């Protein structure tokens, strides 16, 4: 019996190895010439894989473009990407491996605030800059005492901005007087975005009729929605990922809630429309960029041509921007040394990237005047409505 068990284990492991070989792309014969290595920590599997895979594709495009233009400092760039499953513990291991084993000069990603926080110690103690793609929580780059985290940067806007944009859009464009919030208490992104929205909405003179929550993993929000319904809000803000947003939208419409739904960049997945169907029609959400945004049409065309699929925004854009930014910084630093790279990244000003011009605030490591796009779900599509650059 013992032997059979052992054989079974071995057989399974072998099968798995063979299975794992298949999807693994055959690496092109290792380039013998010297390259500058850039790490990419990204969720290629797990619940965030939709964005992660698209992000990896876009990054590849960006690097190829840079290399085609002669590379940086006379060398080609090389991306080493590892899957982190959006898991905090995994991400730490990935970061260590990238820094210690592969000796990358900088890391692009992660896409989640929590994951970026998780690897903060690793990259900061090694003095390797990390450029987070869509980690929107303000505390990612700023410590609790207000000091900046030296080697952590981001290319996206931050949640307070996103929350404020959503609140102002609701107040001014939708002329909403009242709003209700339904958020996921088990998810940091959701919890904080809800908080910023509530702050901005009340500050702008609106009234929050209900602020309800559920826990990650729950599927039925009708009890909370029933309570929300009694307040008859003009707007229902659902700062969650697409799954909960779709469920909440369906259930809210079933209960007869007529409020306009609004959300954040977590909504920006085509899944939302498939899952929610007609219930989500007419809803608005804040995004980093829209497919119709004229500035990025070339990128989208190229992406479609190459991968035969639409990019899942906003991550690909952010990764692309991060690559351009990093290449520029290396050029200006004239070196791959962490400290010099950091200084170069900090002093970035009006760098043309896909989504506009990038200027960094050295005090917060946040890009200044990063635009936010309002998109609407209309006829089973995301359409571009408006761009906010600053808030009043």
């Amino acid at each position, binding site marked *: 019996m013992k032997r059979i068990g052992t054989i079974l284990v071995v057989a399974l492991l072998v099968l798995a190895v063979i299975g794992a070989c298949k999807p693994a792309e055959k690496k092109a014969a290792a380039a013998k010439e010297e390259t500058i290595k850039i790490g990419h920590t990204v969720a290629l599997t797990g619940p965030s894989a939709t964005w992660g895979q698209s992000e990896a594709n876009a990054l590849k495009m960006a690097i190829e473009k840079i290399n085609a233009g002669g590379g940086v400092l006379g060398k080609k760039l090389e991306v080493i990407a590892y899957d982190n499953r959006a898991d905090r513990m995994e991400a730490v*291991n990935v970061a260590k491996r990238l820094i210690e084993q592969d000796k990358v000069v900088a890391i692009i990603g992660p896409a989640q605030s929590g994951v970026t926080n998780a690897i903060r110690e690793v990259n900061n103690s090694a003095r390797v800059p990390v450029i987070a793609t869509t980690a929107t929580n303000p505390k990612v780059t700023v*410590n609790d005492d207000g000091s900046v985290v030296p080697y952590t940067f981001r290319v996206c806007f931050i949640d307070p901005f996103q929350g404020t944009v959503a609140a102002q859009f609701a107040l001014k464009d939708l002329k909403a007087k009242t709003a209700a919030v339904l958020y996921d208490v088990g998810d940091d992104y959701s919890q904080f975005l809800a908080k910023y929205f509530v702050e901005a909405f009340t500050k702008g003179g609106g009234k929050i009729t209900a602020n309800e929550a559920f826990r990650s993993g729950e599927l039925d929000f009708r009890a909370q929605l029933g309570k929300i319904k009694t307040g008859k809000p003009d707007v229902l803000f659902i700062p969650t990922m697409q799954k909960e947003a779709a469920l909440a939208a369906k259930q809210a419409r079933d209960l007869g809630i007529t409020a306009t739904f609004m959300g954040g960049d977590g909504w920006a997945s085509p899944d939302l429309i498939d899952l929610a169907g007609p219930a989500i029609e007419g809803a608005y959400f804040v995004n980093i960029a829209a497919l119709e945004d004229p500035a990025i049409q070339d990128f989208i065309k190229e992406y479609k041509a190459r991968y035969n699929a639409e990019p899942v925004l906003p991550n690909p854009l952010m990764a692309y921007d991060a690559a351009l930014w990093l290449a520029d910084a290396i050029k200006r630093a004239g070196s791959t040394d962490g400290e010099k790279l950091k200084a170069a990244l900090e002093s970035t000003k009006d760098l043309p990237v896909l989504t506009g011009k990038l200027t960094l605030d050295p005090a917060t490591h946040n890009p200044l005047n990063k635009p936010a796009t309002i998109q609407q779900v209309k006829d089973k599509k995301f359409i571009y409505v408006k761009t906010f650059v600053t808030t009043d």
Partner: protein
Amino acid sequence: MAYLEAILINVAIYAIATLGLAIFTGYTGLFSLGHAAFMAVGAYAASILTYFYKVPFLIALLVGVVLSVLVSFLIGYPTLRARLRSDYFAIATLGFGEAVKVILENFDLTQGARGLPGIQKFSTLGNAFLLLAVAVILCRNFLRTTYGRKIIAIGQDPVAAEMIGIPLLSNQLLSLGISAGLAGLAGGLLAHYTTFIQPSIFSMDLSSLITAGVVCGGMGSLTGPVTAVALFVIIPELFRGFALWRLVFYGMLLVIIINWRPRGLFGYEELNRKNLPKLFSIVGITGGLSLFMPTYRWVIESRGYEIFALFVAGVTVGAVTGLFGLLGKGLSLALAPVAERYHSVRSRLGKRLTGLGEENEQALSSIKEHRFRETAPSKKVCPSDATFLAGKAADSKEGLFSGDPNAERGARSAGQHIESIGDAESGGPTYYRETSPILEVRELRKNFGGVVAVDGFSFYLNKGELLGLIGPNGSGKTTVFNLISSVYPVDGGTILFQDKDITEWGPTEVVGAGIARTFQNIRLFGSMTVLENVQAALHREGTYSLLEGFLQWPRSVPRVERRLRDESRRLLSIVGLEKESDRRASTLPYGLQRKLEIARALALRPRLLLLDEPAAGMNPREASELVELIQRIHRDEDLSIILIEHHMDVVMSLCPRILVLNFGRLIAEGTPEQIQGNPLVLQAYLGEKAYAVVR
């Protein structure tokens, strides 16, 4: 190399947590699905202290440990008190784990779902492994103490453990506390290693990783789980390419191991020289497999034939696996002389260490150990021998004034004997009854779902008496024992023992009062050795504190342990098992298992011994040996005994007075001769028809 360091720190941290769970689940057999919650408590407590209050790392860790222990009592006390069975307990802990997460998500101090970023990095490879080593040593020490044996005993058979006076609740809580403490320590280390914690880290996945380690490493082993969890952390790193499949493997591995190797990696054993080849083969297989992909790619790149590449990669895997297998074998052989030397040095060293305080010790023990009556009383009488003669009794009456308690007892029971014989001649039996018998049972009642098992049964037992309790199968004899020893609550009636009402006492209190028993279906601690079975029952005499036990404090623990060992050996020699002391109890033949049960009961220093069919399954030779043994212990150990037995010759030759039970009622009482002549007894045993024929 920080990458390797990262993996190793992970190994150390998870190993500490797994070690904790091994102490709990592995030894008490209770399954926890919420251990991540204890890690969370430790992690949050320690990091809040270092983060907000700048408390030194070690102190913060300690506070985390203490807090985890306290929290574990919070869930452990009510659930263990309610004696939840394995599944119910597991679900309760699962619920608890989730509830802790919810609270952390909502709490302001813990910053909700966002977690605590920016914790300082204090955990290093050095201190993580140092703490792991300390934890392993402490746990190992703990298991070698009275406290540890109590927990192991509970895991083996909770009922038997209670019947040797081990309170379940406090010991299970102790075990849970240790395990939660270690989980808390692991949590604290984790927080100060990743420098960032969030409620979502402490998920069921984490709990199940630890559980998987314990199950796959072997329940009842410390190094097994530690090794297993190390493999669980390292293997996926080797297979970085398909981390996604990692959890699929965990699952399969759990199923495979529990089905085909239910005792895990090393079973009840620890990682030792003999297990080395096993460990090396596992490392070899995984190492070999991790080379599969690189080799395959390398061949493809240089040659390009897929089948050839597969072949080369396969050969590589095989070669590495084989190499490691051989290496393990060789190492284990090479280590043999080293191990021997180590043992001899250790034992010499141990002797010298404990020998240092020999004189002090002797002085102490002469005061302390007066209750260890090493020698039997000088004058031996055989009061309960069936061949006892009145004349002999008269002789021993001299002893009444000699101050020898045994002689006195002998005389009394002899007197009884004379009287009862006299009664038999004059008609209805009456017995000499002491004004305060050692045990008095009045109107005892017990129902099982409407079926009356014991129905108003009253009897008494004189001090030093050897009373027989017989009756047809199913007449309620064993139930009477179960009621006296408080296995079941009593439905009605009172039980007085040495003039104290023990009716409502719990099982361990009853044992403490001086009542020990054996079981009809032998209940030994199967995976313990014969010696350990008896040592476990001597738990009251392990006089050192828990702290001393953890540290194996050289001034107290070895001495006490040696005394316990010697005492166990003495008890074993009484029943004639001294030669078997290192055998695993479950490998003893039937008759010897019964004798071991008696030795274990004697270790409780009982005043009253309840023997439930000690001769069942014995052949006549063994049975007559047993008669001799019972006579001997009755005489030498100053015992009162109640004996349930179906072997009539055993009862008749041992017991001057016999009670007959049928349908839970006393139907007859008297000397063996009177019982044999009693019509009601005949009817009960022979059946009405046969009895009618007899008439």
